[in-house]
């Protein structure tokens, strides 16, 4: 979703009755905040929709629609697992893009099909390894997370040796990049949109209306016009409501 389109729409609504002006800096800050709000709402919406019977249509299956919105943020990275204190471990704090929501770790043993490492709590991992029936194996491995470190059992480090390759892939949701309305200063001191210096919204353009309304609601606070805030917030709430019924 083009950041300039959103900014210009917001400005045109704000300036219609000379209510005030939203500077690029203010817009960027608010836009980043609103994008995160809508992004986080995807997960709550999906959780809610999963409890409701869905249809099998092409365009109005809400679960499918929300999953498609989330798909854009799905990321997978090959990670190097090392052997530390009897566990296979990996610290994902330095991953780029950074991990926003942890998904799963897949383990590939040589050319076998990958297996998803079951994520459990440290306590459950300890319980599982004590039972002969459930102790983690290379076919059914388990992991727990402590801070930003993944601890995997059985402890099999990454190996690139031909014939006995062991590899791990981390699946996660990355955080959306903050939108930036980049600009240059014109000869009259005006802001001129600079595509190269800008970052577009990453969330789905299906949410454009809601995005603009929510930005407007914050903009109303900036320009001290409660009427804008109230009407924009009301309209955004109506969109929310209609999406959840």
């Amino acid at each position: 979703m083009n950041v300039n389109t959103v900014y210009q729409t917001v400005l045109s609504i704000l300036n219609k009755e000379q209510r005030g002006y939203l500077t690029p800096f203010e817009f960027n800050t608010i836009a980043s905040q609103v994008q995160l709000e809508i992004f986080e709402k995807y997960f709550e919406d999906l959780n809610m929709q999963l409890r409701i019977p869905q249809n099998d249509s092409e365009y109005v299956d809400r679960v499918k629609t929300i999953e498609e919105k989330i798909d854009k943020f799905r990321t997978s990275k090959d990670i190097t697992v090392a052997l530390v204190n009897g566990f296979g471990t990996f610290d994902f704090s330095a991953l780029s893009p950074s991990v926003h929501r942890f998904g799963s770790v897949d383990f590939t043993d040589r050319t076998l099909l990958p297996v998803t490492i079951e994520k459990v709590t440290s306590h459950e991992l300890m319980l599982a390894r004590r039972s002969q029936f459930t102790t983690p194996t290379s076919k059914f491995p388990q992991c727990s997370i402590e801070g930003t470190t993944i601890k995997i059992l059985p402890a099999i480090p990454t190996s690139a040796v031909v014939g006995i390759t062991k590899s791990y892939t981390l699946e996660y949701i990355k955080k959306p990049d903050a939108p930036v309305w980049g600009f240059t200063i014109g000869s009259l001191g005006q802001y001129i949109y600079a595509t190269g210096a800008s970052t577009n919204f990453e969330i789905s353009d299906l949410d454009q209306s809601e995005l603009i309304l929510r930005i407007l609601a914050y903009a109303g606070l900036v320009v001290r016009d409660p009427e804008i805030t109230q009407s924009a917030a009301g309209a955004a709430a109506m969109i929310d409501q209609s999406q959840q019924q």
Partner: protein
Amino acid sequence: MTKTSATIPIQENDAVYYAGQMKLALAAGQSKVTFNPGDGGPLNTVLISNYNSALVAVTDTANFDIHILANQTALPTLANKVAADKFYVEDSTNNTVNFLANGVAGAGEFIFLQLTERAVENNWGSYSYLSLDDIINNFLMAYIGDDKILQKVKRTDVLFHARRAMQELSYDILPSAKSIESTIPITLTVPLPIDYVNYVRLSWADAQGVLRTIYPLNGLSGNPTELPIDDGKGVPTQSSFGNNLEAAQSIIESRWEKTNQSNISGSSQSNDSNGIYDEVWWKQAYGQRYGLQPELAQSNGYFSVNQRLGSFSFSSNLSQKVIMINYISDGLAVDLDSLVPKMIEEAMYAKILSSIAYLSRNVDGNSKALFKRDAYAKTRNAKIRLSNLKLDEIVQVFRGQSKWIKS
């Protein structure tokens, strides 16, 4: 016996399945071959070589030979057979064989794999099994998820209940595929098999190879689990470390080993020196054997499971006899590669579902009851299926209906 399970769809061709043979082209300079390049592959058998990567002998259970053929039409012979210490299995998952020690391949050469006779036999019938691993993966895929009864189940739980289902079905449903042949030594004890859970039948083979059932002691004698040495007043004595002193041998067992089985079974001894059992005397002794217990009137001998020794103990008349031990295991002795007959696949799913649902707070009581009934019905079906009742065979047995039985 290490049975294999076939892939679905079948990837082995006729030559691999029936003859255990596989031929692959080699590139010049090639020194290793992967017979199963993917997950599963054209070879069900996991290759085992006698030598490891350091070309040190590590086992004697190799299940294949390889030959390097000069061209596609060349036949495997002793001359082109690669010596066992010149190759090894580099990766058993993909059946990668490294033969660098024998030299790299020349242009146009082929490698010819020949499984041993035993390995070929273990693979025959492989399509009737699937692994417990497959059952678990299928269950995870088909029974758990959004819009299903079980929306979220830990894989660990499925693992646990799958293995328990395997155990329970092994005890009740699965055919006793396990049997070993052994000869009873003069010590009259044979160790319990490595994966023994319970016996089905013990029998000894006569000169014709006909099996005769050996009966359990059932209290006739016994095998004590502790042998404390007492002080003459019934109080066990202890060592200087405070532990009870144990006797090396049980007195009861020693006496039982010396028992003349004829005294228990009441069998006649025509060569008895006193002649009391010969025909002349016998006719005068009608009624003397009144009171004989039919249960004990058998000459096939007795066995017991001696928990103290971890062995089967046998009566003295079975010394040096060839016996067959049919027993059941729990199907888990070889981890997740345990094989499950396809006939009970549905029963396995139903049993896992029932067990998980039973413990779930989120499943209503009616559904739990339904799953339980379903599992019971499918288990019963599985038992009927594995009972292997065939109409022709039943008819053959029924032909005996017109035979007169003398009394």
